[in-house]
């Protein structure tokens, strides 16, 4: 009671100064589509928050420097060892600072989750055609954020200056150096000299904790701003059109759901960070240019690049007598093509489908066999590349020579994508042709949520069981229609009545004209019927309870005010 009173007072005083009520009302009433795949981007967002939180803790203890240091501390095998300050401080963080290891490992796990969620989010957007007009802009921003996330992940695990990451850094250095004409200058400017230099760790640190996160934060803000302005897309379904959004309200349903997701992300990252060891740099040892770990695998999100470097045959050639080294094609060209393809996809897809229209309704993946087939083929190639990054591990497990594994993977990289893509294409065509629901049918979940609508919304001819939907004895309707009514408080409301669902408008309108305009925007020229307010039951007990609650709140508020006044009076008297 008292909280409600306080909240209302606060809202009133803010509104007096900023006139926030209309905006707040719109935002709270925003409708989000009910489909699990719309939560993937949120997982990425919350992983970013976890990264910032745990990362700030780490910066307070990490020393971004390669200056010679002697580590003294609880980790006996390295006690008294001469290492770089970066490495020593990372070991100190892991063993001598309380909760330090938890924060370090959670940070690393959150990074893996961050990129994983981004990639899954991207796949959802890709396969359902959510990148189409008007959302190309957000696709471009999203791909940029993916690239930044990969880069920041790489600098993040390179700055501890351990043996494994030092080797990875050397590979990136060599790949950059392989760029014709500018490669040598590029690496020298980036690293300040020939590998390894003392400038690398501090420069990567600044980029890792300041530059890239700042850009990411700005891009996230723009990404979400555009999302709010454009509203969500949605899967096709009953009552869903190109001009509406069907689902649950932001307040309260999605507010609670998204906070739950945030807490889940925190729970999972801290559980992993506490229980599952990751990047044990104290086992790898400090970086030494004359040593390497074996086996050596990078984090999964850069492993496709490493796999490409392993699989690609030794091709070196000369242009005008100048060398183009072998990492150039698999490293620079393949990586460049990957991101160029991602950036250009909305425009290629538009040209291929001759589709320049704006879309709010998503394609079920099978509705677009060519896109599905292409996507599956590319995924198959990347799956082989990921496996290739672990070829030495596979060889050890299977007890076969690593070069045989390499040969098989080379064949797979060439032979697998096309059949995989063609199979996906054919399956999609078959599904589309007979209208059947089956393999690879993402809308199965959609059916489930439509089923939920039937039991929670007001089903036609069934008993109303809903919470928060207008309850009414709904007589069967012949055709889809929009119903408009004036509620008891004099505000206008409307709802959509279809054969299987009933959807309530998310807001109330002061005038009939406004309500009708909204309904006509959402449902075009569906017939509009003015009806008696549905939900005959006035709900007397509830009203009484509410009134009693409000009264109690008022009493509580007065009591609090009285208490404050009394306390002030006493203070004044003491003076």
């Amino acid at each position: 009671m008292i909280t409600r009173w306080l909240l209302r007072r606060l809202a009133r005083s803010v509104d007096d100064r900023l006139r926030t009520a209309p905006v707040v009302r719109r935002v709270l009433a925003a409708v989000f589509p009910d489909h699990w795949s719309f939560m993937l981007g949120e997982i990425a967002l919350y992983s970013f928050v976890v990264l910032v939180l745990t990362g700030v803790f780490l910066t307070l203890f990490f020393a971004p420097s390669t200056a010679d240091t002697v580590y003294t501390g609880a980790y006996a095998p390295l006690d008294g060892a001469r290492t770089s300050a970066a490495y020593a401080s990372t070991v100190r963080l892991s063993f001598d600072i309380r909760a330090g290891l938890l924060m370090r490992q959670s940070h690393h796990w959150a990074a893996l989750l961050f990129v994983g969620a981004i990639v899954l989010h991207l796949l959802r957007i890709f396969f359902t055609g959510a990148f189409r007009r008007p959302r190309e802009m957000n696709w471009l921003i999203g791909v940029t954020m993916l690239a930044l996330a990969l880069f920041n992940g790489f600098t993040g695990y390179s700055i501890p200056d351990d043996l494994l990451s030092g080797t990875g850094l050397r590979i990136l250095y060599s790949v950059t150096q392989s760029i014709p004409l500018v490669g040598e200058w590029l690496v020298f400017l980036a690293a300040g000299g020939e590998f390894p230099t003392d400038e690398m760790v501090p420069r990567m640190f600044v980029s890792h904790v300041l530059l890239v996160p700042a850009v990411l934060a700005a891009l996230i803000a723009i990404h979400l701003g555009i999302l709010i302005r454009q509203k969500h897309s949605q899967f096709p379904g009953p009552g869903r059109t190109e001009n509406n959004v069907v689902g649950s309200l932001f307040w309260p349903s999605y507010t609670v759901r998204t906070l739950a997701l945030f807490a889940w992300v925190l729970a999972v990252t801290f559980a992993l960070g506490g229980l599952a060891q990751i990047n044990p740099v104290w086992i790898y040892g400090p970086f030494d240019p004359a040593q390497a770990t074996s086996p050596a695998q990078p984090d999964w999100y850069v492993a496709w690049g490493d796999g490409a470097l392993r699989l690609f045959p030794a091709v070196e050639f000369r242009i005008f007598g100048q060398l183009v080294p072998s990492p150039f094609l698999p490293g620079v060209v393949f990586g460049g093509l990957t991101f160029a393809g991602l950036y250009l996809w909305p425009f290629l897809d538009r040209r291929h489908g001759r589709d320049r229209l704006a879309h709010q309704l998503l394609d079920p993946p099978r509705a677009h066999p060519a896109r599905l087939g292409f996507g599956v083929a590319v995924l198959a190639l990347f799956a082989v590349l990921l496996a290739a990054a672990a070829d030495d591990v596979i060889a050890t497990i299977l007890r076969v020579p690593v070069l045989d594994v390499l040969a098989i993977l080379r064949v797979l990289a060439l032979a697998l994508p096309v059949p995989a893509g063609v199979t996906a294409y054919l399956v999609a065509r078959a599904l589309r042709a007979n209208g059947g629901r089956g393999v690879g049918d993402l809308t199965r979940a959609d059916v489930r949520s439509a089923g939920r609508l039937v039991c929670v919304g007001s089903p036609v001819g069934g008993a109303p069981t809903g919470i928060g939907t207008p309850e009414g004895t709904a007589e069967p309707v012949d055709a889809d229609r929009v119903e408009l009514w004036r509620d008891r408080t004099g505000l206008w409301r409307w709802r959509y009545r279809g054969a299987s669902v009933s959807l309530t408008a998310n807001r109330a309108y002061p005038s009939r004209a406004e309500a009708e305009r909204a309904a006509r925007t959402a449902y075009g020229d569906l017939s509009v019927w003015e009806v008696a307010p549905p939900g005959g039951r006035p709900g007397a007990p509830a009203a009484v309870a509410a009134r009693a609650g409000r009264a109690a709140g008022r009493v509580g508020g007065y009591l609090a005010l009285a208490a404050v006044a009394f306390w002030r009076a006493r203070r004044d008297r003491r003076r």
Partner: protein
Amino acid sequence: MTGRDAPDRRERPASAIAAAAFGVSVLGAAGFAAVYAAGGQTQLEGLTLAVAFAGIAFGLSVWARRLLPTGGYVEEHEPFDSRPTDLRLAAEALTGPESPVRRRGLLTMLALALGALGGAALFPLRSLLPFDRVRPVHALRTTPWAAGVRLVRADGTPVRPADVPDGSVLTVFPEGHRDRGDVPAFAVRLDPARFTVPPSGGEVAGVVVHSLLCTHAGCPVALYLQGTARVLCPCHQSTFDLLAGARPIAGPASRALPGLPITVDADGYLVATGDFTAPPGAGFWSLK
């Protein structure tokens, strides 16, 4: 709407479950604080913190699923084409008579000034590579190895040909340059009768020395396969045949490991007679 003030039968167990979950979260948080205060233990810290967040997450999930409406709402979604009047007025406001857009000459000069400034602003980027450092091409082509430089182990002790073990490789450095990235080399003892191609750096009593850095991406070729006298790079599995001039025979590398020309000095220690036979490590544009 309904059910907020008068909980029905369905939601009472749900709210009890959610409340219990929040209670578990309190226990988790208290547990985390206790573990931390008692000296800290990573696994328990992670577990208690995870329980604390999972309690909140589970409670909120139950709340969202059982106590709040799911679905059933619709919001209109206006198309994004503005009305023609709006478009026209916006265009007029932007390009009206007083609009800076109309001052072509001024705009050109301003663009020129900004472009010049932008170009000038690129120059300080050169500071990223200090001027007292060697220019890239020269630095990449050369190493501190030179005539008369002794081969030393990682701990700085010089090496006699007899010190090179039979079954393994010995990592060597130029004396006084242990930490440079381009210097590591390895010495290995081979049977001169088995050479199919003479080693590029020559041999002293069967000892040959090559750069340790893979010519593909610069990783140390740390794995020595004794029987076949091959070295394997752990990064991308490039394999080099030491009996055939350290030529690459598998994997993505396509240049031989540079050899180090060696001899023995007056004290019987191995010394270089010059730099590597080719720049060590990964390739680059101006590599000859």
